């Protein structure tokens, strides 16, 4: 055993930082007399060793960041190998090390990978503060470099024990205390969060807790009692303004103020005597309900001054959100009224710039709110950047898999692109998105309506009666559940009328009118009676003429990651899997595997001693660029055998007769219910599944590959095009991207 285990470990760190850190966490490093130290404490001790190379800290930083990356990539495998408890302990130690040792690279990785890490670690949150999820937030709070999480810290304080576990309170307080703000603003923010917490809970005990916490804050910020009184009063006034904006009764607030005054007396005296000071405290006011209504009216009437007033209103909301930590009003108002601004005839480049700046705040402050993403896509389309809008919406679909509106919007965008470009792949993807939305939420009427329309358009091109039948069923289901839904009833009537079933169409409309007088239904009835055809609603194909030249106007770093084209979405996925890279490469049509590596800046993780394996998609890409990897791919990912055959065929690799036969059988398996009944299950290995959900992705993939003539075309050689722009390329890319999605746990919209 080495006399000085620290020196021995530092030497190992110098040779191979990744291995040294991995070995330490895995218990393979001899710690000598320091065995009682936890992992992070051992690292601290090592860095304190006299004569240690100053570069050791950077090496530890690199090792820890790579270790986290590897854990993220192979989470399930590690957990199974060492047990969940040991796994969680070690994760926690790595996160603690980032704070204890002040590791900037690892801290930046936590921020950059925020979305993915939050999703990864939240599955291990049992509501206690000693877990890695709490450790993650703690590390973010302790190492923050900007204010991107300020609203989250605020929310933690206000809603700990409600939306968040109780440990979130202290993490939120640490986060708010550490904000890069002038001290007075920071103090107001902290007090405001504590006050709103007490207000939310509403009990006398909560008020007493606020008073005590104010006392605690006061220990950090020595100030005369009058200063505290003024601040509390001013914040109460702000709270009152918000209650008025909500059009709530103020009775509860008045009662709360009385209780508060009582509990605060021992700490800061009579708060009512702080009125003079309160007037000197500057806190942005929340715009009133009436102000908002006025702006909405002006936008509706397309008044010339409307855009200016709207932008002013948004900015005041933003300032209030910035000061109070309450982003709700800002985000909601921006998304709702911003939509109308984009439709205003006077929209110009400057207004778009302002909206974009405001949008950035919304995206950062409410990263798990899908509505800013929808607005973002709309804004990009207003700028004529439909490709970016598509990228944004693909990312929204990925981030919010349960959010049907994102899928519907993307489906519409793809259909609009198809109207212009006539690319069948787009229509197929649009249909799949709508099918997934319908399958995901049977009560979401718009997705059913849009799918019904798409199927009708397909029917009118392809003359396939089954599609019409399906469209009718979709609409009838909505009409039955939601009889007053305008679009579903109108859509059903239109479908019936267009297909020679006018009496039924009339009946559908009559039933609706019996429930409610509606001018649209009345007009449709009239058209049917007069024999006037009811056209299908046209897709609103936006003009390619943009409001201004699509020049390289500056975009924020956050937005830059999703520029160029829809392929960026899959790289964003891969990026969240643990690799970082230069996003500017997105603008070039690079060879797929090389592109991935270029995007990452790193080699994908390889099968290692700990059995760490990259996600299948990454390993597959490695094989696509290096044929010698196919054997490893087949060996290490037996569950993905079918995909491997597909990709080999795509790459022009020879398959055996047996493999080809199996692939063919899978591809040609019919999707209709009748075929499913007829074919049955012969139980043979390699036979296609007999029970397939009607909107399954598997069906979609088969249809797409059949449409591209995949098998036949592959007999002539590799199907991958040089610039990856072919139909088959797109199917493969989307399929691999989706494969990465499958490795990622579904997003939990609540924190």
């Amino acid at each position, binding site marked *: 055993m080495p006399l000085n285990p620290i020196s021995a470990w530092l030497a190992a760190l110098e040779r191979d930082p990744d291995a040294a850190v991995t070995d330490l966490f895995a218990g393979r490093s001899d710690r000598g*007399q*320091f065995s009682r130290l936890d992992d992070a404490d051992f690292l601290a001790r090592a860095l304190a060793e006299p004569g240690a190379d100053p570069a050791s800290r950077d090496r530890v930083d690199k090792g820890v960041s790579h270790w986290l990356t590897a854990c993220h990539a192979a989470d399930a495998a590690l957990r199974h190998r060492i047990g969940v408890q040991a796994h969680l302990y070690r994760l926690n130690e790595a996160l603690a090390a980032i704070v204890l040792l002040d590791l900037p690279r690892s801290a930046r990785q936590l921020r950059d990978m925020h979305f993915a890490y939050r999703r990864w670690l939240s599955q291990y949150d049992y509501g206690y*503060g000693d877990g890695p999820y709490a450790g993650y937030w703690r590390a973010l709070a302790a190492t923050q470099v900007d204010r991107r999480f300020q609203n989250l810290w605020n929310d933690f304080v206000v809603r700990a024990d409600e939306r968040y576990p109780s440990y979130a309170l202290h993490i939120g307080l*640490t986060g708010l205390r550490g904000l890069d703000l002038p001290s007075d603003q920071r103090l107001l923010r902290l007090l405001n969060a504590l006050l709103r917490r007490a207000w939310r809970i509403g009990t006398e005990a909560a008020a007493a807790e606020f008073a005590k916490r104010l006392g*605690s804050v006061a220990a950090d910020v020595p100030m005369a009692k009058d200063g505290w009184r003024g601040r509390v009063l001013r914040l109460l006034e702000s709270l009152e303004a918000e209650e008025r904006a909500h059009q709530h009764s103020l009775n509860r607030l008045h009662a709360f103020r009385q209780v508060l005054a009582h509990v605060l007396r021992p700490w800061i005296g009579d708060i009512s005597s702080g009125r003079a000071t309160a007037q000197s405290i500057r806190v942005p006011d929340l715009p009133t309900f009436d102000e908002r209504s006025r702006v909405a009216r002006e936008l509706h009437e397309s008044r010339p001054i409307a855009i200016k007033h709207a932008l002013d209103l948004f900015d005041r909301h933003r300032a209030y959100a910035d000061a109070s930590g309450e982003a709700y009003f800002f985000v909601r108002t921006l998304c709702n009224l911003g939509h109308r601004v984009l439709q205003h005839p006077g929209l110009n480049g400057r207004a778009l710039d302002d909206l974009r700046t405001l949008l950035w705040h919304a995206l950062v402050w409410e990263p798990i709110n899908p509505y800013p993403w929808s607005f973002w896509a709309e804004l990009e389309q207003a700028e004529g950047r439909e490709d970016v809008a598509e990228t944004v919406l693909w990312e929204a679909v990925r981030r919010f898999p349960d959010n049907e509106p994102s899928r519907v919007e993307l489906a519409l965008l793809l259909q609009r692109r198809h109207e212009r470009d006539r690319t069948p792949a787009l229509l197929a993807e649009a249909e799949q998105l709508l099918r997934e939305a319908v399958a995901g939420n049977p009560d979401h009427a718009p997705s059913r309506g849009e799918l019904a329309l798409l199927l009708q358009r397909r029917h009118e091109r392809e003359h396939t009666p089954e599609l019409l039948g399906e469209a009718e069923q979709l609409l009838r289901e909505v009409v039955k559940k939601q009889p007053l839904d305008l679009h579903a009833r109108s859509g059903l009537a239109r479908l019936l009328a267009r297909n020679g079933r006018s009496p039924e169409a009339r009946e559908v409309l009559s039933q609706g009118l019996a429930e409610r007088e509606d001018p649209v239904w009345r007009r449709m009835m009239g058209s049917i009676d007069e024999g006037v055809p009811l056209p299908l609603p046209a897709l609103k194909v936006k003009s390619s003429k943009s409001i201004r030249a699509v020049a390289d106007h500056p975009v924020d770093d956050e937005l830059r990651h999703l520029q160029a084209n829809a392929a960026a979405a899959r790289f964003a996925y891969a990026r969240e899997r643990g690799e970082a890279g230069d996003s500017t490469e997105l603008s070039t049509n690079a060879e797929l595997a090389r592109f991935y590596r270029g995007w990452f800046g790193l080699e994908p993780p390889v099968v290692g001693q700990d059995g760490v394996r990259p996600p299948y998609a990454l390993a597959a890409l490695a094989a696509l660029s290096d044929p010698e990897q196919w054997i490893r791919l087949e060996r290490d990912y037996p569950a993905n055998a079918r995909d491997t055959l597909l990709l080999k065929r795509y790459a022009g690799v020879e398959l055996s007769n047996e493999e080809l036969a199996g692939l063919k059988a899978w591809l040609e398996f019919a999707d209709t219910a009748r075929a499913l009944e007829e074919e049955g299950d012969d139980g043979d290995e390699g036979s296609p599944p007999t029970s397939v959900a009607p909107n399954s992705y598997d069906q979609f993939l088969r249809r797409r590959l059949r449409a591209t003539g995949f098998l036949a075309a592959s007999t002539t050689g590799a199907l991958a095009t040089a610039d990856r722009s072919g139909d088959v390329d797109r199917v493969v890319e989307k399929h691999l991207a989706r494969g990465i999605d499958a490795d990622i746990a579904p997003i939990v919209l609540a924190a």
Partner: protein
Amino acid sequence: MTSLTALVRSLRLPELDCVSWAHAHNYEFETRLTDRRRQAYESHCAGQSVSDQTTWLNAHKDFVDARIKGRKPFVPDTFADINADAQTDAIADDLLILRVEDLRRPLADQKLELTDLRTWQDIARGRLHKKDVDPARAEARLEEFLDSWNGRRDFRPAFAAFEHELGSADNLATGDWPHLLRDRLGLAHYDGTERVPVGLMGIKPAEVRSAAARHVAASFARPTVLDGMVNRYFFPTPADFRFGATLHLDPGAAWTFTSEILHFPVDYLPKHLIALGEISVAVPPHCLRALRDRHLKGLQAEPGGAGFGEFIGSADCLKGPPCR
């Protein structure tokens, strides 16, 4: 004889160093493991294909990481039924349990310094006066610090000793208690190379019992070799001993029996924080074998200790001069 037992015995060869002997003695002379706990450990080691000391230490870390340092709400083996033989409740209510706590993490988490805690504590106790910061505010701030720290602590067993053996807490607080207790309690991992802020915590047995009861766990246990990492400064005690015994690190100090106990963690309040200090001075130079043999001699001289253990018979004193 299990393979682990055979391996442990094979570490007690003259040609092996005294650290190997220490590791072997800690396991072989551990008398307080229930059969079930020992079997679980040995099965774990067998499953990890333990074949030599290196793989044994590796497997032990996996075991401790999972079963002692696991995350809440899981209660570590120390306080679970599997450790019934080591558990005890022979702790009188009027005792004061003392523990040295490492404050680096809670300070780093909250971006505080030791001086901040000292200031608040001094104001709260009337030892310092600061404009616009009265004792109530300082106490509230201290409580917030502790509350935040409590939230991030896990359930691992807390190694502790007794005031009546260490000396009055108030007297300790005025002296160089960080180093005194570091040495007396065998905390060699705080070797003074880096400055470690520490807190002297004092808690009552009733508080421990109350905390443990909330999680259906035992309150106290005598330390065993499986309650922490493989540690050359740990020494088991004979089965009849009421408590564990810490290994004094200072060969120059007279040997005294210092009882050691493991207790279920308690959420700290300001009243528990007796003193604040820093460990910054090196551990007294010592020879591990000499320390351990002296300790064993002391144990053997205690009632119930006759014939316990084995003196280190290593011919390899880590290849030369005293190991520290």
